[in-house]
């Protein structure tokens, strides 16, 4: 039982004399499973998934149960394996960007940005000011929609339906903005090496401004609904807890790591896109349980909203500035010039037929994605197609900690713990 003092709403059931939420039937087994000894004579094998709504995709868990206590948890993945890394070795760099949409499909724009940054690091390209600001906007919008999906689906898993509707309503507004910008809601393919696929359309900022001014209200409602809710607290506090040392040892990243009290955010520790010049805070958890992961993600949405507001201010200053680098070996010339100017036509032809050619070498670029540290490790041999394109998938590595967290927990907690990892199977399986 967690010993946190939590400010409780009046007249909520399940509170003991000290004001701590009581969670007798849902409690974690005392450790050695003696609590359920009468049921534990025989071990049972339970299969969850791969087609199960609470596994958030095609994840399959095989659980060994003693009574209701999980003795062993064996995850099976790979049902959505598409071989993106292999496919990438047969494609030019800009042709890989559509593949990145489909890895973590809840935050496609952030993946696009990460990939473009990795190739630019490989080439030593310095992108334009306006491009940086637009990419920050893309990343933070992605963080908000990804966390909203997490919030909604986790709420549903634990029996709260209403916040799901709220969060998906908010998410819809960002999707509309994404559609207005890129023409696609999910397969955005927003970036190109050295720049962006397109600048934002006229009047787009007003839409985002309207979102950033009204979104905190929804967050406040979610906060009211969850943060001091006895059922939510009972299902989340002290469940699936990992200490800081365990979290580091398991290579966790993102909100999972920060909830355990480790101060590691790639935006702060290895800044990219001038994140060091934005004013935002990173919330660090204390107990590493599901409740702390919830708090960390909720706060991240607030902070993302702050960053979006700052980025919008910068965008005003950079009105009309170029979004692409001026190197014609990297970026396609405008179509009008390619049709009228001989030199531009040659560059256009070489770009389309051969593609970008980074020098031989290798680079690792980590970015802070909603799920954790997304890393792209690129190896080039000087040709237009990468020798190796490795995705460091945050959900995959975070999911690997599931057996550690589940063993000793109750069967019903497995659903909550799995939800708290925030996996997306497109990225786990790639």
């Amino acid at each position, binding site marked *: 039982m967690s010993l946190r003092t939590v400010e409780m709403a009046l007249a909520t059931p399940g509170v003991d004399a000290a004001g701590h939420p009581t969670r007798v039937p849902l409690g974690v087994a005392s450790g050695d499973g003696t609590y359920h000894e009468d049921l534990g004579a025989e071990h049972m094998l339970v299969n969850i998934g791969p087609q199960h709504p609470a596994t958030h995709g095609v994840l399959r868990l095989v659980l*060994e149960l003693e009574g209701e206590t999980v003795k062993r948890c064996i995850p099976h993945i790979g049902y959505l394996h598409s071989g993106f890394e292999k496919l990438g070795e047969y494609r030019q760099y800009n042709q890989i960007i559509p593949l990145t949409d489909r890895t973590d499909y809840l935050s496609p724009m952030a993946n696009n940005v990460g990939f473009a940054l990795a190739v630019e690091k490989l080439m030593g390209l310095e992108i334009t000011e306006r491009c940086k600001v637009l990419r920050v906007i893309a990343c933070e919008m992605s963080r908000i929609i990804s966390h909203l999906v997490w919030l909604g689906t986790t709420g549903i898993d634990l029996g709260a339906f209403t916040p799901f509707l709220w969060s998906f309503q908010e998410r819809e507004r960002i999707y509309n903005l994404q559609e207005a910008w890129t023409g696609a809601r999910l397969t955005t393919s927003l970036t190109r090496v050295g720049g962006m696929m397109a600048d934002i359309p006229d009047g787009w900022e007003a839409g985002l401004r309207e979102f950033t001014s009204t979104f905190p209200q929804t967050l406040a409602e979610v906060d009211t609904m969850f943060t001091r809710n006895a059922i939510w607290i009972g299902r989340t506090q002290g469940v699936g807890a990992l200490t800081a040392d365990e979290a580091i*040892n398991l290579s966790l990243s993102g909100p999972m790591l920060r909830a355990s009290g480790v101060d590691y955010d790639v935006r702060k520790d290895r800044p990219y896109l001038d994140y060091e010049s934005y004013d935002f805070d990173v919330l660090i958890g204390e107990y590493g349980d599901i409740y702390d992961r919830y708090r960390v993600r909720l706060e991240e949405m607030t902070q993302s909203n702050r960053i979006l507001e700052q980025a919008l201010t910068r965008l005003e200053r950079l009105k009309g500035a170029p979004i692409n680098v001026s190197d014609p070996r990297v970026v396609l010339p405008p179509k009008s010039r390619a049709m009228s100017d001989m030199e531009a036509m040659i560059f256009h032809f070489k770009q389309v037929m051969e593609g970008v050619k980074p020098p031989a070498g290798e680079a690792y670029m980590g970015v802070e994605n909603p799920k954790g540290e997304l890393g792209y490790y690129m190896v080039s041999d000087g040709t237009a197609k990468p020798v190796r394109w490795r995705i460091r998938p945050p959900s995959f590595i975070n999911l690997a900690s599931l057996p550690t967290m589940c063993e000793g927990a109750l069967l019903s907690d497995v659903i909550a713990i799995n939800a708290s990892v925030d996996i997306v199977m497109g990225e786990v399986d790639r």
Partner: protein
Amino acid sequence: MSPLSPSVAPLRSEFGSAIERHLVSCDQTIVYVSRDRSHDVLAWLRDTAGQEFNYLTDITAVDYRDSERPLEVVYQLRSLGRKADLRIKVALDKRGGQLEVRSVYDLWRGADWLEREVYDMFGVAFVGHPDLRRILMWETYAEGFPLRKDFPLRGHFSRAEQTRQALAANPEAHYSLEELSIAEEYGELPKEMQERLAKGERGFLK
């Protein structure tokens, strides 16, 4: 900050000839370590004061297009306290038969699935890993290791063969042998399977 990591000099003085070479690419330092000492080097980097590379960012491998060039196992290390990164590589000669390197599972639990993935995709065996079996491909996958450069994009088997195998697969065989051993079904397994289980055999490795 100079592009060359300050960890290279102490590594060289500590391990001498086990540090094969180092280079800098895109301001990131890469240190090649001999296969026999890779575990020692990684443990030293993790535990020595002043190095403290306590966070294993990633393990992966690279197979180059040049078939003569060795396959490389790549460790991305991060020191959360010192905010420094280091990339350690172990070159494995592909012509020498079995590709083997010591597992770092005992140093970082996070290496569990990462090493399984490298085994699955490249066929590198991690000696000392407690549960080295395929992870993204299914356990009976017989076409080889997909991310090797000698593996064709569409696989070794023809479409017809792939379809035939998929249709012939026993849909009841959802559980691994290990999982069946949990439940009573173990007793109903064929004798030969039970023996293999008792020996602790998994996947392709002995």
